[in-house]
């Protein structure tokens, strides 16, 4: 059975209709359930169609051209292996966020500010992935950006949300501008805006280089590539939690889709240094992202920063795929590209799960600050368990899915000695080291996130009185947790499902894995490296169960309760526990002065003064200080200078137009 692309356009139309209905429903009580129910239904139907497509005819291409938009282009839509994968990510993310939203939406103060844009946001992301010409792509991209912007400022009374919305809007416009220029260059003077036309053209090396850099700006700013990441930790947490999950888990993937579509599919062969740029940027993004995450005490901001890290990992794999492809090493390119796609899928799963967990914590306690949480494992056992699974997965521990994709990434890194370029030979292992480092930091970051939030004793009355969240939210989290486990112990099936894409885009694929004995995977050859998630899972389960059995058999069943040892402090209040700040301090001491310009000031009152001593830590984001502040200052200066133009006489305005026209004609006369 082949699935026609127009079916997905109907799904998009249904989502848009839902958005309109949501506007009409306004503030009515049942609006939230109705809208989330509708988006859930539509997304599930889309997911089922995609599953059928992937099972029956994975490489099939289906196209349709609607007479919309520009008259001589129309609006093209296309479903191929790559867009099918990303459609699956978008619609699955949409479905699970809607399911979560049915429960979570009940606590929303202003649902009429969220519901219409939620449906429109899903429609926008679908359209970006389906688009088959530059015009439709840019229009959908901008639609997606604006819908998500509306969701970011849905809580518009908070100063932080408004600022986040402003920064996001500026960065999104900048990104769209870059994309616009990139597509303009690719279309060339003849204006071939359809992707098919662009694909058939051969571009000059300079054009390819410029388009590549513009795509880094355009897609990188949406995905959160350092140093274009500054909006991400502000905007993603400002939205309601299920929207944060969509933005972090899904929208960043749509941005990567745009990058892959252009760089791997449309552009032709970039020069070798572009892969080096990609690899270095990815490595820097991974390390900086996770360092930011380690410094955060706000749970949702921590998750948003960790998204930056994962984007870095994905971009490293993409850079490797590009490097291998340009050297005609198809199998290695396929390995790196599979690693990237696998990590994209994984990150959309566990990042959604973690944001849902954070949302559950916020619903239960009203707190996002980890320093005010703690001990939630006693009051929210189910949420804690699901969150723990997400933490283990994102920390890349076997047998969960995060491990598999990072392992594949490292397998690809290990192929780098075969590359002919010396630059890459040196860079890639170094970046591999950075990745290993960021993986270790990620593990400590999520030990901190889980430990401070869910373990220990509650640090505030709100955390003390938390209750388990509703069944919808819990079921959404558990579905994601189950999928994390499934993708971790059965990676072979995922890898095989990705192989039509690698075949189409990098001209190679790794050998089929699903019929390997005992469900193990061996991306290159059994003799070099192999991994068996199932075996690890069985081993962990059996050994843990055996150990528990032994302990219970041999130990006494008597329970003895006594006061915990208090280190000599008579009053062990919850505030004396190890805090998020304490946990991050060693790492901040090591990297803080270099990366964050961190400064600690101690305010120690003199003897006799009864006021409390204070330790303040000030960290700065260097991207703000070195890049954005000078740009903002320059623009402000220019704006003040150009202010005079607002107060000219009519004749001066006319002369201005006249002189501009004459100047342009002069340029034309001199240049042609």
């Amino acid at each position, binding site marked *: 059975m082949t699935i026609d692309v127009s079916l997905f356009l109907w799904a998009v139309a249904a989502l848009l209709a839902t958005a309109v209905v949501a506007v009409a429903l306004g503030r009515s009580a049942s609006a939230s359930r109705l809208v989330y129910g509708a988006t859930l239904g539509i997304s599930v139907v889309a997911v089922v169609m995609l599953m059928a497509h992937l099972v029956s005819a994975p490489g099939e291409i289906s196209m349709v051209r609607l007479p919309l938009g520009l008259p001589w282009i129309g609006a093209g839509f296309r479903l191929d292996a790559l867009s099918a994968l990303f459609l699956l990510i978008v619609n699955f993310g949409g479905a699970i966020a809607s399911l979560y939203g049915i429960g979570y939406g009940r606590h929303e103060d202003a649902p009429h500010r969220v519901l219409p844009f939620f449906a429109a946001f899903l429609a926008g992301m679908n359209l970006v992935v389906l688009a088959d010409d530059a015009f439709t792509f840019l229009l959908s991209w901008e639609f997606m950006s604006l819908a998500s912007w509306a969701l970011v400022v849905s809580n518009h009374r908070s100063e932080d949300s408004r600022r986040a919305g402003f920064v996001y809007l500026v960065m999104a416009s900048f990104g769209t501008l870059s994309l616009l220029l990139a597509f303009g260059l690719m279309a060339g003077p003849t204006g071939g805006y359809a992707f098919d036309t662009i694909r058939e053209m051969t571009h000059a090396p300079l054009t390819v280089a410029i388009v590549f850099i513009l795509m880094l700006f355009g897609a990188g700013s949406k995905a959160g590539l350092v140093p274009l990441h500054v909006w991400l930790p502000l905007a993603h947490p400002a939205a309601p939690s299920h929207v944060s999950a969509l933005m972090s888990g899904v929208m960043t993937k749509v941005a990567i889709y745009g990058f892959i579509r252009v760089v791997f599919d449309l552009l032709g062969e970039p020069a070798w240094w572009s892969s080096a740029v990609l690899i270095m940027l990815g490595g820097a993004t991974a390390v900086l992202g996770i360092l930011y995450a380690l410094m955060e005490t706000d749970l949702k901001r921590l998750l948003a920063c960790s998204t930056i890290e994962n984007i870095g990992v994905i971009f490293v794999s993409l850079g490797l795929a590009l490097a291998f492809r340009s050297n005609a090493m198809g199998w290695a390119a396929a390995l790196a590209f599979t690693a990237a796609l696998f990590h994209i899928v994984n990150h959309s799963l566990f990042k959604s799960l973690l944001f849902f967990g954070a949302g559950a914590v916020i619903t239960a306690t009203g707190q996002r600050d980890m320093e005010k949480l703690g001990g939630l494992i006693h009051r929210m056992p189910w949420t804690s368990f699901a969150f723990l699974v997400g933490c283990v997965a994102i920390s890349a521990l076997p047998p969960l899915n995060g491990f598999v994709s990072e392992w594949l990434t490292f397998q690809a890194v290990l192929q780098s000695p075969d590359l002919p370029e010396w630059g890459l030979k040196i860079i890639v292992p170094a970046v591999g080291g950075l990745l290993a480092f960021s993986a270790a930091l990620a593990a400590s970051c999520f030990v901190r996130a889980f430990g401070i939030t869910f373990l220990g004793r509650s640090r505030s009355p709100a955390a003390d009185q938390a209750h388990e969240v509703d069944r919808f939210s819990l079921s959404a989290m558990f579905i994601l947790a189950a999928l994390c486990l499934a993708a971790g112990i059965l990676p072979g099936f995922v890898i095989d499902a990705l192989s039509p894409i690698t075949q189409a885009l990098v001209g190679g694929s790794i050998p089929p894995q699903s019929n390997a004995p005992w469900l193990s995977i061996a991306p290159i050859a059994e003799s070099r490296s192999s991994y068996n998630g199932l075996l690890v899972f069985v081993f962990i389960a059996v050994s843990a169960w055996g150990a528990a059995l032994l302990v219970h058999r041999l130990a006494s069943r008597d329970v003895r309760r006594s006061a915990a040892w208090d280190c000599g402090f008579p009053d062990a209040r919850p505030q004396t526990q190890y805090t998020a700040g304490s946990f991050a301090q060693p790492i901040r001491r090591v990297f803080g002065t270099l990366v964050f310009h961190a400064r600690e000031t101690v305010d120690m009152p003199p003897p006799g003064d009864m006021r409390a001593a204070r330790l303040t830590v000030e960290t700065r984001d260097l991207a703000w200080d070195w890049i954005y502040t000078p740009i903002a200052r320059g623009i402000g200066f220019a704006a003040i200078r150009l202010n005079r133009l607002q*107060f000219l006489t*009519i004749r001066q305005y006319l*002369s201005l*137009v006249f002189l501009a026209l004459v100047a342009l*004609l002069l340029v*034309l006369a001199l240049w*042609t």
Partner: protein
Amino acid sequence: MYGNLSFDIAHLLAGGLVLVSFMMLYQDRLYALINTYALHALVLSLSVAWQALVQHAPHLFVTAAIALGFKAIVIPVALHRIVKRLGIHRDIETVVGIGPTMLAGMGLVALSMVVILRITPDADPLAREDLAFALSVLLLGLLVMVTRRNAVSQVIGFMALENGLILAATGARGMPLVVEISVAFSVVIAFIVIGIFLFRIRERFDTVDVGALDEFRGERQ
């Protein structure tokens, strides 16, 4: 193509339009300027009619008729009446002197020749010359708008500019009549609106010198 009569006549008429544009540049009385504008429109309608004949495009005759009827007769008459009712028969002061204006006009004609002849090397010679003249007329119209302070003469500059557009459009083969009619219609609308504005401006400031508007905004001491 050179030595061809149809080409020569088209060339002559379009060149005549440029010449009349230059005449507009140095008219410093309003009535004279309006009369020159009527001549401008007359030459335009002749040129369009010749194009209609050469291109065997009967709908261009409609364009020519519109140009003749509206621009050469109705609008100049209306402008005469406006000027009479406003009571401004006095000199129109050009902001820049006549000499520099004429020099600038020559520069503009040279510029448009260079641009058009260079970027359209393989176009139809008739259309090519026509486009070059049309761009000159357009730029000269704009120059009239820039160098005058009187609102009535700015309106005339604007309509001379529009004549340049018509010339360009008829020179290029196959402009649909609908476009032509809508352009003519928009010019009439613009004329009406600007006419109304003229009276409103006069009512408020007792002058149609646009400098008065600047004074009103408080930007000139």
